[in-house]
């Protein structure tokens, strides 16, 4: 099914449907790493505590200097203090680094595991699942969602723990030092923080519109570039430009605003720092004059103010990050929890070499979704070695039959039998082993021509590869390519769609399976080449049952049995001559090529 929406374009304000549930699942799946994560948390706490002790010791340090202003400074004390401080700083850094190191390790191991699980899951899901899901959706789970999760874990957990400890610790230390100064520091920081929250909320809105406009302009560019020919010949350039200018202008406005607003964070932070500083100094001065505190504690508070504002920002950032991580994990786990194809145990096995190839469809009924049946009551008996052609208008259910035969989908009712054994009693793997299948949509991957032809088949010599290519008439063409059989196939290459089809035919020839399915396999190949390939195929599949689906009637004229499908039922069957004589649907279809 096609999807109209492109998923959510913006990744900023995404919220999970069930925050608690997805976090729970995330924590559960992190179970095997729990020891390492606990260690990282302990390290983060230690590192933060040491960070907080620092200013307190600096305060003693300054007081010591001040005390010595007149009477002379006690240098043994000072040196000791300095050494102590250096040790604290060093330990704090080492713990901090170890924490980061452990989290990086855990995160990467975890995301790797997740990606592998998703990749394996793809192959365990029934094809039905992909009818309703776009590739882009699955793809974005493998990369974007897993990345979001990884990044959040990597950045947030350490910094969040650190920030909380710092936050609580600084408050405690400040209150131990002097409650009035503490209140001053907290109060002045909070004023700034409220200001920042307001701005963040505002900029969020513009960020969203910016993301949307960006998505729109990218869509427009993609569309116009890929339809470049048509845009030009239909003089659509003006129209394209007009639309582009319109979106570009909107994007300009929203990106300007969001950029401006997000750029405010830093100066505001700096201002809060300065404001807090002055507040501390003024209140501190009052207290010093009243002899309630020492100068040293003002110095300490100057640092406390700075330490206090940073965990607040960290926590706010971590909160939004956690939210998007929860949304990402929700999607990842939802995919991993999708219902898989049933595991097949205790099944019969048909031997690839001994199978005869008698196939029967008995009262087969099927629909991709419940309220729309595509195959109504399909019955046919195919004898070993027959060449079966299936024709009919689009939507008649031709490819569906193949899907059922290959057990990609299971019938709603009725049965399909190979050599009198129901395919329900065979494993999917066993069935796939029996068939060679070539589809209209050629599937080639990024690799050399040789790799593409051999694919996962074992014990294939290069000679065999060459021979298959000679049969389909590609050998000469491949040799004219710069690296011959080792030429890498990529997206922007000079291999035509017809040649691609021939490559996939060569691939399936090597499979030497007893049964053959060609689903519009030569639709892009010209008829002369097709005839040659067909002759070669016939030789290869001599005595083997084969199914051919084709639009082009010349492709199937020499089939032993032609099944004419219409709306999920066979309306006519027989060979070419018989069907022409019947003068029915097939004859009409066939003769339409001579009419004028």
């Amino acid at each position, binding site marked *: 099914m096609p999807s109209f929406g492109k998923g959510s374009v913006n990744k900023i304000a995404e919220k999970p449907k069930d925050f608690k549930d997805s976090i729970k699942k995330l924590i559960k799946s992190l179970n095997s790493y729990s020891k390492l994560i606990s260690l990282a948390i302990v390290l983060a706490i230690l590192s933060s505590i040491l960070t907080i002790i620092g200013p307190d010791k600096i305060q003693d340090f300054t007081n010591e200097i001040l005390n010595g202003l007149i009477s002379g400074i006690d240098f043994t004390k*000072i040196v000791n203090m300095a050494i102590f401080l250096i040790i604290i700083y060093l330990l704090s850094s080492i713990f901090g680094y170890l924490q980061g190191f452990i989290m990086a390790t855990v995160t990467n191991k975890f995301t790797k595991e997740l*990606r592998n699980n998703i990749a394996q899951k793809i192959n365990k899901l029934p094809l039905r699942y992909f009818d309703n899901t776009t590739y882009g959706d699955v793809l974005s789970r493998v990369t974007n969602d897993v990345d979001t999760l990884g990044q959040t874990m990597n950045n947030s957990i350490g910094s969040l723990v650190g920030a909380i400890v710092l936050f609580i610790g600084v408050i405690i230390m400040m209150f131990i030092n002097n409650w009035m100064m503490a209140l001053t520091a907290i109060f002045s920081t909070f004023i700034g923080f409220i200001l920042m929250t307001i701005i963040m909320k505002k900029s969020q809105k513009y960020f969203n519109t910016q993301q949307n406009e960006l998505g729109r302009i990218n869509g427009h560019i993609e569309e116009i570039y890929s339809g470049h*020919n048509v845009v030009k010949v239909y003089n659509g350039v003006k129209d394209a430009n007009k639309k582009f200018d319109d979106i570009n202008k909107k994007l300009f406005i929203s990106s300007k605003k969001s950029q401006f607003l997000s750029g405010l964070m830093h100066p505001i932070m700096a201002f809060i720092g300065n404001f807090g500083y002055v507040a501390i100094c003024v209140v501190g001065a009052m207290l010093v004059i009243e002899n309630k505190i020492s100068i040293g504690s003002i110095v300490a508070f100057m640092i406390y103010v700075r330490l206090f504002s940073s965990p607040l920002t960290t926590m706010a950032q971590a909160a939004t990050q956690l939210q998007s991580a929860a949304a990402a994990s929700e999607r990842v786990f939802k995919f991993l929890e999708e219902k898989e194809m049933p595991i097949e145990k205790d099944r019969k096995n048909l031997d690839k070499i001994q199978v005869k190839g008698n196939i029967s469809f008995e009262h087969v009924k099927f629909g991709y979704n419940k309220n729309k049946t595509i195959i109504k009551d399909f019955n046919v008996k195919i004898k070993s070695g027959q060449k079966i052609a299936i024709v009919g208008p689009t939507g008649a259910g031709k490819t569906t039959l193949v899907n059922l035969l290959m057990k990609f989908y299971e019938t709603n009712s009725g049965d399909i039998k190979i050599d009198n054994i129901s395919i329900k009693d065979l494993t999917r793997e066993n069935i796939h082993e029996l068939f060679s299948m070539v589809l209209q949509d050629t599937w080639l991957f990024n690799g050399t021509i040789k790799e593409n032809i051999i694919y996962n088949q074992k014990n294939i010599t290069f000679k065999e590869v060459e021979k298959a290519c000679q049969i389909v008439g590609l050998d000469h063409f491949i040799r004219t390519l710069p690296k011959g059989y080792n030429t890498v196939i990529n997206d922007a290459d000079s291999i035509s769609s017809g040649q691609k089809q021939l490559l996939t035919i060569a691939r399936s020839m090597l499979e030497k399976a007893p049964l053959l399915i060609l689903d519009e396999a030569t639709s892009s190949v010209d008829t002369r080449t097709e005839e040659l390939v067909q002759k070669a195929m016939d030789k290869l599949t001599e005595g083997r049952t084969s199914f051919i689906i084709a639009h082009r009637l010349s492709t199937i004229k020499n089939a032993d049995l032609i099944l004419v499908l219409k709306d999920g039922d066979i309306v006519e069957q027989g060979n070419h001559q018989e069907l022409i004589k019947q003068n029915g649907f097939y004859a009409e279809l066939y003769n339409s090529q001579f009419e004028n």
Partner: protein
Amino acid sequence: MIKLLKRLGKKEWLLVLCSTIFIIGQVYLDLKLPDYMTEITTFLQQKGSTIKDVLIPGSKMILCALGSLTSSFIVGYFAATIASTLSKTIRKDVFQKVLDFGMEEINRFSTGSLITRTTNDITQIQTVISIGLQLIIKAPILAVWAIYKIAGKAWQWSLATGIATLVLLTLITILVTLVMPKFKKIQSLTDNLNKITRENLTGIRVIRAFNAESYQENKFNEANNELTNTNLFTQRLMASMSPIMNLVMSGLTLSIYFIGAYLIEAANLMDKINVFSNMVVFSAYAMQVVMAFMMLAMIFFIYPRASVSAKRILEVLNTNINIKNGKISKDITKETGTIEFVDVSFRYPDAEECMLENISFKINKGEIVAFIGSTGSGKSTLINLIPRFYDVTSGTILVDGVDIREYNQEYLYSKLGYIPQKAVMFSGTVGYNISYGAKKNIQKNKIIESLKVAQGYDFVSKMPEKLKSHIAQGGTNISGGQKQRLAIARAITKNPEIYIFDDSFSALDYKTDLSLRKELKQYTKDATILIVAQRIGTIINADKIVVLENGKMVGLGKHKDLLKTCQVYKEIALSQLSKEELENA
């Protein structure tokens, strides 16, 4: 990068100038702050100071901070304006340029790459400019000014600051040189992982049919391992960044105080308090100096990324377009609907051999002309020369008696109705797609008429909102045959002199193909029709058939004649129909 900046307008340069002034102001105010700090600390030291003494410099300090905040707001606004304007301008320039490209230029870059160049690369530039512009102006000013401020206080402090800066810069350089190349690698490894997953998804039926699930999983596993290891390497290294930075910063403060203790001890009694407040202030300035150098380092950190993007954008903007627009934009001969190829040869750029050689023929008004030949024989290439997707290598093509290179392109296109092999759909309504590029006041009747001729009326009228139904980007919500019929309706709506069908009928079944051609001929009696086809049935009644083989014209004539005279044609025909059928037809 610098070349791209040239695209900024006068107004933007004025904004840059204003920003600089405000940044100078901001730096001045920022550096003024520690002065007030000194004042405050000095007051605090002196016995008998009142709160008033502290309040005055305190309020001045807050004013300074407010002033600095305001300047950063203004600078931030200017920077955002400049960056957004620049990206808007470049985006438009690139888009415009690509629209002017011919097939040759597009193929050279590939569509996908052009898309990234117009989208991601420009976004990248915008981010870098908005951050980088402020940095590049502010960092040197701040560095110089802050150094100037602390210079002459005590060389020991300066030395400590210098060492701290040096250590940090070395650290950053090491990290960047180690990590940067890996970052690039991570990008390509992620792409690779994506590619394998996409491969797995698009080939899901083939993979299952080959029982190749574990083969694919192994492949994925390998790519995943490589990605994870590279990620692990960079992240472990990057984890050291902030602990070391913290260590150096705290270490610097400590050293300043520690050195301060000795300086105070060495000073005479009167100066001691002075040195003490100097020490507190110096530690603040020292941080500014370090920050300034860090900012400078940041520029080196982000510049390479922007520079790569800038290069990619400039490549597009500096491309010479081979197809030059002509001047003729009205009919200067009496001919209409004629096409003549005079000794046309064509060779793809960089190719060794000619794709088409010495092709000559003439098509008259109202004729149906078919082009046939095996895959790779040059049919599509030949037909693509008429709308000038490529220009001929030698020879000339005349439309209505005029060399097509002399026409204004828009005028030439107004004569042509081109339907490509793969139908192009735009997101919008069915009606929008059919009337694409047509004049605004197109009548609804006309659209429906075209749809009927294109055999598309039936399915469109079954759609929930008929002509107003939405077509998704790339036409993913309708079938291939439906797309093809809409594309044909689009051409009919245009009412061109010449129709060019580039293998557009193969997605249709015989019956639809037949009725479409019948009705088209009736509807457009005078139009010349060019058809590239695979099926003999499609072309059997054409007025002229051009048979191509390896880029050469090996036959020209009617079906019956060609059967007798042209071996290639005979072979093609016999591969599709039996002898008797051919004779009876």
